[in-house]
């Protein structure tokens, strides 16, 4: 009978499924490491594949199980956090963006590493500025930074020559940047003078490469670590919105439809820069990843065509330049049954040799002092030293669980400004209202 066979099949399948699963729950001798693998962003995958045999040889009896999660960022965290909700599936070691450190510590997904760090000689090799990336508001350190990234100005030297601008361009203030853009607009028609990301289409790029690179150069910040409050509105915030308005309303930037395209950041690195259609780009250190041989948009001449300059502070105030950093943390799962073996894995993955390997594979900026001078570190990427030097002045985003929501409102506010739907003043006031609603009115202070 069909019904019986259907039942039989179902039963057999469930039974098979159950038995198939028995072995996969952690048996105490398996260390599971979860990380993201996406597109040609496979640095972590290559790193863990490389060290798997080493780890298993150094720790007899232990197996290292790699769990690469192949998906975009939101899907990656969704799955990672689902896995962490259950002790059976929680990875022992996981890889996550620095700005999740507070919310994941609060969710009790992470294990504090303070004691481990005291006896780890390599920790002294980490740049102080980067050490704080893994530190939560409670003062404990929950993750080891696996390199970082920095942001600044890319500019096309060929377009600069046509516009009569110097090949070694080093703007000192925002006005210098605008002046160069104006000169390009006047002398070299048909190119976009200056790209500053804005709007919800490009997502976090609008917040970090765009608005925050401006705001943190005004002396104001998005979050005050002393008062533990979000800062909105502020004078710097208003000035940053005004800068965006100047760029977009006087034809110095891309058109709003270009900027708001969800694939605009892809187009910038894949088309606009290589085809010489964009003169100045406020963007990230990782762009060469697309241009190196084997990259998605291989462009052998990139290093001779493009120059780099730090993004200046608003009026050239100290330290004269500004940059923001993101990057990845390696952390231990709060529920790991093998904390010591898992910690050994982190130490192995982040030693000098393997850090170098990861920095090169993932186009990361070094956070270890001893790696910077290695010739392999700058090989094939002449801009690497420039981006690494920026780490000394770098700043991180406020690592709080409401940040993604505030960032989303920030993107909406920049969108209103660049499309002309709202004035800088009204965009700032709206944003301040939204932040109050998200973080709570007592967690926000104005500074204007």
């Amino acid at each position: 009978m069909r019904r019986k066979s259907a039942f039989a099949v179902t039963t057999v399948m469930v039974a098979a499924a159950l038995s198939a699963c028995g072995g996969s729950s952690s048996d105490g001798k398996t260390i599971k490491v979860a990380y993201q693998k996406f597109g040609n962003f496979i640095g972590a995958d290559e790193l863990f594949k490389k060290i798997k045999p080493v780890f298993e040889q150094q720790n007899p009896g232990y197996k290292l199980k790699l769990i690469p999660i192949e998906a975009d960022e939101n899907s990656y965290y969704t799955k990672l956090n689902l896995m962490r909700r259950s002790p059976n599936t929680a990875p022992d070691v996981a890889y996550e963006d620095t700005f999740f450190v507070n919310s994941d510590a609060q969710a009790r997904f992470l294990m504090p590493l303070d004691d481990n760090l005291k006896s780890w000689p390599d920790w002294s090799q980490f740049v102080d500025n980067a050490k704080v990336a893994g530190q939560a508001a409670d003062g404990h350190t929950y993750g080891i930074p696996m390199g970082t990234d920095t942001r600044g100005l890319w500019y096309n030297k060929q377009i600069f020559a046509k516009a009569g601008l110097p090949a070694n361009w080093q703007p000192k203030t925002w006005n210098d940047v605008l002046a160069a853009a104006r000169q390009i607009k006047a002398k070299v028609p048909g190119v976009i003078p200056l790209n500053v990301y804005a709007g919800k289409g490009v997502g976090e790029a609008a917040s970090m490469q765009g608005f925050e690179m401006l705001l943190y150069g005004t002396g104001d910040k998005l979050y005050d670590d002393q008062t533990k409050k979000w800062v909105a509105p502020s004078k710097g915030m208003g000035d940053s919105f005004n800068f965006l308005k100047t760029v977009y309303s006087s034809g110095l930037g891309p058109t709003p439809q270009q900027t708001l395209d969800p694939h605009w950041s892809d187009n910038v690195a894949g088309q606009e820069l290589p085809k010489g259609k964009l003169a100045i780009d406020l963007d990230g250190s990782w762009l060469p990843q697309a241009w190196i041989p084997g990259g998605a948009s291989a462009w052998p001449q990139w290093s001779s065509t493009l120059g780099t300059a730090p993004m200046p502070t608003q009026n050239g105030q100290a330290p004269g330049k500004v940059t923001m950093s993101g990057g990845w943390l390696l952390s231990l799962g709060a529920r790991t049954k093998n904390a010591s073996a898992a910690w050994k894995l982190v130490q192995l993955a982040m030693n000098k040799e393997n850090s170098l390997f990861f920095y090169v594979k993932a186009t990361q900026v070094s956070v270890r002092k001893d790696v910077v001078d290695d010739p392999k570190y700058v090989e094939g990427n002449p801009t690497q030293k420039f981006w690494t030097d920026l780490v000394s002045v770098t700043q991180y985003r406020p690592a709080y669980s409401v940040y993604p929501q505030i960032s989303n409102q920030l993107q909406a506010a920049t969108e209103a400004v660049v499309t002309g739907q709202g004035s800088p003043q009204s965009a700032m006031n709206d944003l301040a209202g939204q932040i109050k609603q998200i973080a709570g009115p007592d967690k926000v202070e104005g500074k204007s």
Partner: protein
Amino acid sequence: MVAVGLPERAATRRPPARRGRRAAGRVLPLVPAFGLLALFFVGPILWCVYASFTDIALTGAGASSPHLVGLRNYRQMFSDPAFAKSLWLTIVFVFGSAVVGQNVGGLALALLMNGRRRIVRSVVGGIVVGAWVLPELVAGFMWYAFLSDHGTFNALLHAVGLHGKSWLYTSPLLAVTITNVWRGTAFSMLVYSAALSNVPDELLQAAAVDGASAWQRLRHITLPLIRRAMLTNLMTITLQTLAVFTLIFVMTGGGPGTKSQTLPIFMYQEAFKFYHLGYGAALAIVLLGVGALFSLVYLRAMRKEV
């Protein structure tokens, strides 16, 4: 086809079975399928209902110790202008895509093809169905490229002397609506072709001889006869269109701004970008409610026409 002509619908006679065994005999075959549905569908939906009254989250304090918050998620939702806008966009999208585009387009195609040469039906039908079987992600990317500034569509417009524009920027909702019509018309076309094959030719011919115009024949003979197909078609495509996510996500990401942020995109953002599972669950429940409302309207409207 298996059967031709109007099928014998209601089963008046029944297979033999003794009284006690009969009920069991009828219900038992349903058990495996409905058991599976209960386990994997009903259970999780009930969980969603529960979660919509909590502040459960994927990270932060809501992940380690969620609390019951009563109607807070729903209050937040109904006081949020972004939600109202999203709800409105969803209704416009469903109406434009499912009720008008797919439904009318599918009917028109089915009428046009009815009685045409097999080769034309096969080729045109094959292309239309090809759009339907393509994975949603691929379809979304194709249309993103098709409508992009230097894409095929603007190139075609240019070739005939018209000016293109940034379709995804200037009219995002229209763009995703048309894409969804492109993708979903095949289903409606199949439904209506099936229904039309059951409309007796003699009836139409007799009406034509009596002097009824093509429109009159359609209005007074064909449409009443395919009423049931229309109801099922509308219900199905409405529910499917309500849930469309990948297509919009790939093409516009819900933007620019929130101009194409339908409820599934809004829900995804809340649940998986801001990690507010509770709020996301409340949105899912509302989405189900919208589907139910549409269904009720159809059922009502169709019943009246009997």
